[in-house]
């Protein structure tokens, strides 16, 4: 185990009766990265998060957080935003934030100061004396996130942080997450929005039926799933190029053609041919890297076979 790892998970398994929710999972989360946990509903993401947080005990395997087993002191350095969220409904916003922050080891005064600053930041200062039940759903979600980071943890584990947020609030949250990362914080998040993973996350773990399906840096994984194909846009007869097996018109999204290459032909070979050919005029040339969304669907479909 590397000493830098924020989380080190080694062969954990969790059964609920006859149902195996997590099946021999191993992975590391490095300090300072945004780590995505992906997988269909019921694939074991939440159970894994709960085991990392020591809410659940794994049946087998070992978990180290911040370099050791989870202690009370370590717990104070973690923030958790569960998927199914709730707040004390009849309690005033500021009071509830202060309580939750003191449970994470802040003093009353410090908790109050930070809560007020956070409410200012989230443009919710005027609601600080209101009861939680009087706030809109979007406001409540922002408060919930605020509670997760108020004690300035080193690691936050957030389950579906963007679900139910409108685009404006999603942007606010995204900024807060990047800010958290910039200060050296580690983020583990699960999400179903693959575009967000592509945009925000350094590495990912995809699980299905409790087992690891994909694990590694987001870019590397996308490249692994790249076809031996290129996407081009321009004029000319693409099929006449040497090494091109067949030409497909791209239907979804941007205009262009997908050129499937013959075995042993690399994109570099084709680029060289295009450069020397006067039959074609190139405007765009890129590797046919699939979106994470495509990869996700493909992995899930494959595991059904």
């Amino acid at each position: 185990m590397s000493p830098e790892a924020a989380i080190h998970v080694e062969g954990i398994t969790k059964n609920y009766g006859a149902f195996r929710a997590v099946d021999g999972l191993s992975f590391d989360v490095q300090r300072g990265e945004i780590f995505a946990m992906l997988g269909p509903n019921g694939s074991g993401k939440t159970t894994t998060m709960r085991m990392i947080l020591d809410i659940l005990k794994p049946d087998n395997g070992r978990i180290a957080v911040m370099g050791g087993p989870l202690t009370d002191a370590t717990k104070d350095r973690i923030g958790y935003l569960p998927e199914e969220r709730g707040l004390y409904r009849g309690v005033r916003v500021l009071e509830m934030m202060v309580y939750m922050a003191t449970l994470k080891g802040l003093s009353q005064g410090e908790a109050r100061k930070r809560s007020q600053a956070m409410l200012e930041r989230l443009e919710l200062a005027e609601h600080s004396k209101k009861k939680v039940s009087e706030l809109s759903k979007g406001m409540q979600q922002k408060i919930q996130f605020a509670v997760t980071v108020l004690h300035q943890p080193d690691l936050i584990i957030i389950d579906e942080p963007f679900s139910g947020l409108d685009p404006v609030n999603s942007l606010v949250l995204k900024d807060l997450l990047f800010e958290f990362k910039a200060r050296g914080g580690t983020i583990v998040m699960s999400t179903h929005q693959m575009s967000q993973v592509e945009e925000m996350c350094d590495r990912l773990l995809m699980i299905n039926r409790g087992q690891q399906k994909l694990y590694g840096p987001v870019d590397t994984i996308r490249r692994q799933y790249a076809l031996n194909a290129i996407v081009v846009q321009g004029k000319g007869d693409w099929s006449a190029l040497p090494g091109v097996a067949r030409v497909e018109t791209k239907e979804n999204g941007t205009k262009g053609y997908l050129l499937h290459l013959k075995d042993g032909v690399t994109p570099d070979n084709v680029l060289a041919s295009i450069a020397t050919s006067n039959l074609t005029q190139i405007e765009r040339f890129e590797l046919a890297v699939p979106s994470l969304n495509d990869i996700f669907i493909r992995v899930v479909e494959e595991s059904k076979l």
Partner: protein
Amino acid sequence: MNKLLLVARREYLFNLRRPAFLFAVFGVPIFTFAMWAIIFLVVAAGESDAESIGTVGYVDNAAILIDPIYPTDVPPERFVAYPDETAARQALDDKTIGAYFLITENYLSTGEVESYSFTGLPEALRDNWEVFLLANLTRRLDPDVEVERIQDPVNMVIRAQDTGRTLTEANIPALIFIPLIFAFLFYMSSGTTSGFLMNGVVEEKTTRIMEILATSVTPSQLLFGKIIGLGLLGLTQMVVWFGAGFLLIHFGQGLPALNGVVFPLDLMLIMLVYFLLSYFLLATMMAGLGVVAGSDQESRQYASIISILFIIPFFLIAAILEDPNGPVALIFSLIPVTAPMTMLLRLGFSAVPAWQVIASLLILLFTALLVAWASARVFRWALLRYDVRTTLREIVNVVRRPSHEVAVSAAHSSEEVVS
């Protein structure tokens, strides 16, 4: 600050401001004072009623009021004699008198008295008239007998050899009612606070705050923090009520109902011990069941079953009071859930043997610790079980399992199982 104390502090301060609590704390004494006030006003109004009709005449055809005597309650000017009915009738028509009584000739055998008035007779006047007649009839039998002795022949002074308390008739009502009021307040207080405890746990579970709490505090810190915070809340409530009771008795000595009543400090101390232990027992039960219950509704069903267990002695008041040291009283003093109430009722009336008090307290203490221990296990286990009904068998299994195997169990809610 210790996290257990943080939880306790929050539970105390938050629930202290709840309208339900404020009502219970201040509403109950205010309501009691108001009831007393109404009763006294009604009594006072009844007394002035006797005078409202003015002077009352009478015609004595049975010759029992010749040269009448007037007992202390009957002012001599209230009843005026008229020689015959015509004169009395005339006085009534002239409004010299408000009413008159006609004592019939055969009154001594029939007791027949006719009354005449335009407005009807107040109850208090009729009572006054009876006292007047009784006094004068008594004198015919034995001039030495005081009318008070006929009205109230026994004024019992009970000298209990075992407690050394001397009870006079004047404070017997107080001795019956004070334990009853204590028992009632006791039940209200521990019921309110343990109810808050259960609601709190159910709220935290249904809103999933429990999940965040579980990453900040241990299940035991959460459970015992709540029990301590709300226990202090219950004590606060009792202190306010005792204070009000003390003031009522202290300043109410002039009132006939409270005259001579002493605030029983010794009883109060024992009661405090019983309160703490029985609250602890009730609260740990409620917390354990609250975390097992899936919903508000389910938790209320559990709460009402438990509450009934605690108030069983109320249904047996007659049996317990009739024989405060009998077998029924003894058995219910030893059963932990019924012990506090039963003992309170018994201690008010008689001297309970010391071994029984000690045995009852020890059994209660032991049971409370056992339930707390079991409840902590169930609490940890059921913390994150959502949307599943828990069976009694499962609970028993959790309690009996070796401790290292008791971990939080997240039941697979429907979402979790779909794969």
